[in-house]
């Protein structure tokens, strides 16, 4: 009963259009004032301690690093390198876009940031080269979603915060599925381009390819810094995030010289703005999940589901459906923070690996970002291309379908996610 009231209240408040963080917070307050005897001071305490965790601090660091990379010419060089490698195949710049998104995803923790970084440079270039705008928009909107599957990933940090799963293991678990999804999206791109005979780039010579690689080298090195650092244990994920921010800053200002010192405060401020928004959602979501735990709602739900005989296959199907539906209305961090604490105890009781479950949630979030009515990647792409959301929706569907097929694969083939972290001895 309490669970029902909580969820109806939350849904009602959210649909009025107020910020998700505020609807979460007001739900908690209403509940605490009327239905329970938890002292209100604990709310104040949780508002501070909810984000008082070093792991969470990876989020602002990754956002800052992402902004330095976007403004600092790293994205531009990655695109050139990617295009030099695969641009002569069918799909040309589009295929280059998939590869560039995958490369950028390996240094950035956010999907919309990946769409912005690659899309704002590549999409106009594609239109100029004679691609239909829809084709480019479809490629970049969906490939940008790789940003949260290929490590580093802010959404994985959120999942780790909500469930106490190791960030390092999650990052490693995202590598293989990330590469595979990039491949799937690439094949889709290639097929559509081949069928419609879209323009191809002249094949780059080895010298040109080497030059493009050399130019992009410092940006690509960041992959080594982040993943190598975490894997060897040189850094914790949070430290790796801070190191990548400093590294990206040095590359942008002193190596590529695409950014001036004078522009730094603005970038710091924008990063702080975005980070604060996410941290504010986290704070209120932590409060929300605290109230639920306090009322023993996830535990009760877990018992119901486990006793219902739904089984692993049925449960995972239900999880996918619920998350895809939620993806219609909310952005990923809120979804993960609200649903992970509820679904996680059930998954554990059913014997599902926490790391696999995390990857599954992340792939769901990727799909959700690319379809309307709410999809951050769509909004961003719409901002860049000035295309309407409806038109974009039509544009993304071939790739979206690919992602759904991939989702089924990730859901029912745990080894795809777990093999690498297991091989590295992380789980």
């Amino acid at each position: 009963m309490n669970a029902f009231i909580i969820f109806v209240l939350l849904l009602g408040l959210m649909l009025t259009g107020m910020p998700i963080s505020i609807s979460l917070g007001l739900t908690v307050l209403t509940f605490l004032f009327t239905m329970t005897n938890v002292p209100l001071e604990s709310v104040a305490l949780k508002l501070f301690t909810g984000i008082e965790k070093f792991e969470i601090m990876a989020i602002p660091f990754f956002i800052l690093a992402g902004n330095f990379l976007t403004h600092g010419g790293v994205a531009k060089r990655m695109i050139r390198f990617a295009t030099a490698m695969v641009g002569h195949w069918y799909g040309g710049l589009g295929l280059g876009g998939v590869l560039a998104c995958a490369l950028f995803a390996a240094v950035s923790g956010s999907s919309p940031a990946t769409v912005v970084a690659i899309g704002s440079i590549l999409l106009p270039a594609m239109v100029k080269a004679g691609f239909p705008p829809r084709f480019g928009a479809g490629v970049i909107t969906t490939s940008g979603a790789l940003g949260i599957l290929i490590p580093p990933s802010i959404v994985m940090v959120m999942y780790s915060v909500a469930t106490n799963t190791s960030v390092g293991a999650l990052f490693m678990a995202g590598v293989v599925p990330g590469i595979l999804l990039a491949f799937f999206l690439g094949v889709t791109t290639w097929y559509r381009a081949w069928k419609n005979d879209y323009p191809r780039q002249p094949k780059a010579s080895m010298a040109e390819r080497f030059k493009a690689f050399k130019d992009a080298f410092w940006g690509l090195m960041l992959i080594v810094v982040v993943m190598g650092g975490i894997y060897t244990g040189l850094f914790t994920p949070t430290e790796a995030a801070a190191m990548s921010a400093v590294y990206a800053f040095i590359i942008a200002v002193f190596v590529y010289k695409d950014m001036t010192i004078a522009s730094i405060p603005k970038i710091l401020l924008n990063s702080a703005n975005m980070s604060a928004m996410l941290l504010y959602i986290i704070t209120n979501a932590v409060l929300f999940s605290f109230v639920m735990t306090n009322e023993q709602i996830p535990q009760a739900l877990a018992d119901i589901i486990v006793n219902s005989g739904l089984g692993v296959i049925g449960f995972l199907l239900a999880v996918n459906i619920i998350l895809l539906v939620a993806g219609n209305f909310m952005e990923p961090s809120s979804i993960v923070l609200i649903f992970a604490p509820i679904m996680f105890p059930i998954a554990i009781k059913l014997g599902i690996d926490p790391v696999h479950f995390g990857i599954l949630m992340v792939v769901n979030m990727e799909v959700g970002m690319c379809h309307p009515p709410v999809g951050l990647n769509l909004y961003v792409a719409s901002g860049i291309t000035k295309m309407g959301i409806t038109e974009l929706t039509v544009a993304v569907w071939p790739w979206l379908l690919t992602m759904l097929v991939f989702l089924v694969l990730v859901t029912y083939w745990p080894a795809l996610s777990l093999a690498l972290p297991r091989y590295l001895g992380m789980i």
Partner: protein
Amino acid sequence: MLSKVFDHLEEALITFLMGAATLIIFVAVVHRYLSGFDIPVVQDFVLSINMAWAQELCIIMFVWMAKFGAAYGVRTGIHVGVDVLINKLSTPWRNKFIVFGLLAGALFTAVVGTLGATFVWDNGAHYAFYSWFGGNMDGLYEGPTTPDLEWRTWTVYSAIPLGSYLMCTRFLQVAVQFIKTGELPHHDHGHVDGLDDEDTAEVK
């Protein structure tokens, strides 16, 4: 005029916290890495520097950044909501919901600010103020400290009431502005400064 100065102070504070926290963690990591090299004298010197407080300070700085940044975020319209439904409504109805949302934000932050202020007061601020200004200290307790820096936690937790009240003020400001002009601050996720045709033309 005064409010402009205040706006700039707010921006300067969160900009500083973002940059400084990054530097602190960078230095702490480099320090730990250097201490792994077995160079006589140098190693002893490096190890004699205590950086154990770095994580704690970073966390405190980011929590402050988050609380004040959230207030700044109201001003820049970055807090996202589910507006699918209300966007389908007629403008007068939509406007009512928007004002309702802003006032709900103001209500929440005001309540939380007050809860936070009470908590900070009971958690050591009461003791501190009375011992500074000579009140009756019977039954008061000085409050806990943070483990590494040994700062009073109430000073650290003050971010909650200060940030929340500021955020409340921002919600009210935006509501008044919206009622007067019909304008809302809007954050454009697709916009990137400094990227223009010049960059796009380079990709061939």
